[in-house]
């Protein structure tokens, strides 16, 4: 049986890739992301410059872009291009982990509320509404201030404030799937609730969740950048947001050290855009409402 499962998987994959390649935005997004992923992963092969926070050539601080430093240097003489490459690692990692966790929370809440209904649904949906109503950034600030600023805390703060979109979408999808005959048919053969949720509902909801998660990575990177920029990021790690934080702290704006500010900003924007494009393309494929049959 396993060999035929592989062929089924391959068939689905080819069909999916075919559909994805029809979306110009999707292709563009993937290209952007490939470039950034590549430079982040292979940063230590691409750059000569070590990145330890102490290793900066103070003589060369605040240099504009030149032959030695392609994007100039920061306030302690570190190569900005190198910082961006290493910074990508943290930004992307936090983005993935936060979006994944957020998607996970949203899925569990959406599945439970949608499938079980009753008081469980009421309670969960009211919680969702409350979180939705509270302004996101202030909430994140308050949570960060309480919990402290570390790598994992940032992931936690972002996850806990961004799951609501997924929860609502998953619940809506579950509500409509629940009414379909094949779900009742599973009950009729004696399947447990867990089996119905895991084997019947989840696979039918999964593509939607995936699209949401991909969109969420872009969002999470933006959130992380905002938090770090405001000084609530992990001071021991380099992320694009942190670079911006250092830039502003060092007065780069008023001194017109544009190479310190604009490159990180562009990176954040491009990556967020890349994930949004890919997420949008995925959504076009999986969303039953907007899909044109």
């Amino acid at each position, binding site marked *: 049986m396993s060999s035929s499962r592989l062929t089924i998987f391959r068939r689905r994959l080819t069909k999916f890739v075919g559909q994805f390649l029809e979306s110009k935005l999707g292709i563009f997004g993937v290209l952007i992301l490939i470039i950034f992923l590549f430079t982040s992963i292979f940063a230590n092969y691409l750059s000569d410059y070590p990145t330890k926070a102490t290793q900066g050539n103070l003589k060369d601080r605040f240099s504009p872009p030149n032959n030695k430093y392609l994007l100039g240097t920061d306030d302690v003489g570190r190569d900005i291009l190198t910082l961006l490459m290493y910074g990508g690692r943290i930004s992307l990692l936090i983005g993935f982990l936060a979006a994944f966790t957020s998607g996970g929370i949203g899925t569990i809440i959406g599945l439970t509320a949608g499938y079980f209904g009753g008081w469980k649904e009421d309670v969960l949906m009211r919680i969702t509404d409350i979180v939705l109503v509270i302004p996101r950034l202030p909430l994140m600030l308050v949570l960060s201030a309480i919990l402290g600023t570390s790598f994992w805390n940032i992931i936690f703060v972002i996850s806990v404030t961004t799951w609501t979109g997924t929860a609502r979408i998953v619940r809506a999808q579950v509500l409509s799937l629940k009414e379909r*005959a*094949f779900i009742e*048919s599973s009950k009729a*053969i*004696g*399947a447990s609730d867990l089996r119905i949720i895991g084997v019947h509902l989840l696979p*039918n909801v999964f593509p939607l969740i995936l699209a949401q998660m991909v969109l969420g990575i872009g969002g999470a990177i933006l959130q992380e950048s905002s938090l770090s920029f405001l000084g609530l990021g992990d001071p021991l790690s380099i992320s694009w947001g942190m670079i911006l934080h250092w830039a502003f702290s060092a007065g780069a704006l008023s001194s017109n050290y544009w190479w310190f500010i604009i490159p990180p900003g562009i990176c954040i924007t491009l990556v967020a855009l890349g994930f949004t494009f890919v997420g949008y393309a995925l959504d076009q494929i999986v969303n039953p409402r907007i899909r044109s049959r």
Partner: protein
Amino acid sequence: MSLENKLVIIDDLKKYYPVRIGLLQSLLSKERQYVKAVDGVSFHIKSGEIYGLAGESGCGKTTTGKLILRLIDPTEGSVNFKGRDVINLRKSELKEFRRRAQIIYQDPYESLDPRMTIFDFVAEPLIVHKIGDIEKQVEGALERAELTPAREYFDRFPHELSGGQRQRTAIARAMILNPEFIVADEPVSMLDVSIRTSILNLMMRLRDDLGISYLYITHDLATAKHMCDRIGIMYLGKLVEEANVDELIDEPLHPYTQALIAAVPDPDPTAEKSKVIIKGEIPNPTNIPSGCRFHTRCPQMKEECTQEEPTLREIRDGHRVACHIC
């Protein structure tokens, strides 16, 4: 008729759905409104029998079928399967019941999981009940449902199959646990006419070979005549007539049954055209007429029909009617 012969016994089964009303209305009006989908239905199905439950949409036949399988919980009444009460079964006993009583749905496009292969879908009951030798059993079930060669269907998905093939898949899945009783909810009404008879033939063959009983729910009296041994006619949640199928169709006693039979068009163009012998339309189920609920449309209505609800009485041997005039 010995008790052992009766596989399924339903007594005074009721299912009321409360109508959701706004806050203001609930404050103003005292009485709660209900849709009385099933309002006191009693009948039995014998072992190896095909019992037809017929009526127009909204009469409660599908709800009755699902109540028997406990896919819906009744408001009142009892369901008895092989001498045991189904309503109050514990979880483990319920699972055991599900092995013996299965369902086939009307819509072959909705009753299969679109993301599961045919193999996985038909195998699922075996997995749920932890029965082994899955591959062989699935192959056997598909072949019995006349999907041959069975192996060619293993890796296919529902959207690759025709309506008739999907319905056979549903039958294979319902059969794989060797049930004793199947509720068939309008199993052929969404299939092409030329395929209907082959699916019905399959169902009858399974009954002849394996002794399965069916509750055949339908609005089509023509297929019911050829499938069923006995048939019950439902109107607005109640059983109005029940008899052997030939007797019911040749000598219907209840005016509603007479109207249903007169309305069926005949494929013989020289025969009498279909007729409408009752007036009006089916009343709103939240506002059921007083007395006999059919009186608003009955051409033979009397005074007492508006006041007292008739009970289902045995007029002749095996022929029950709920009517003041009969």
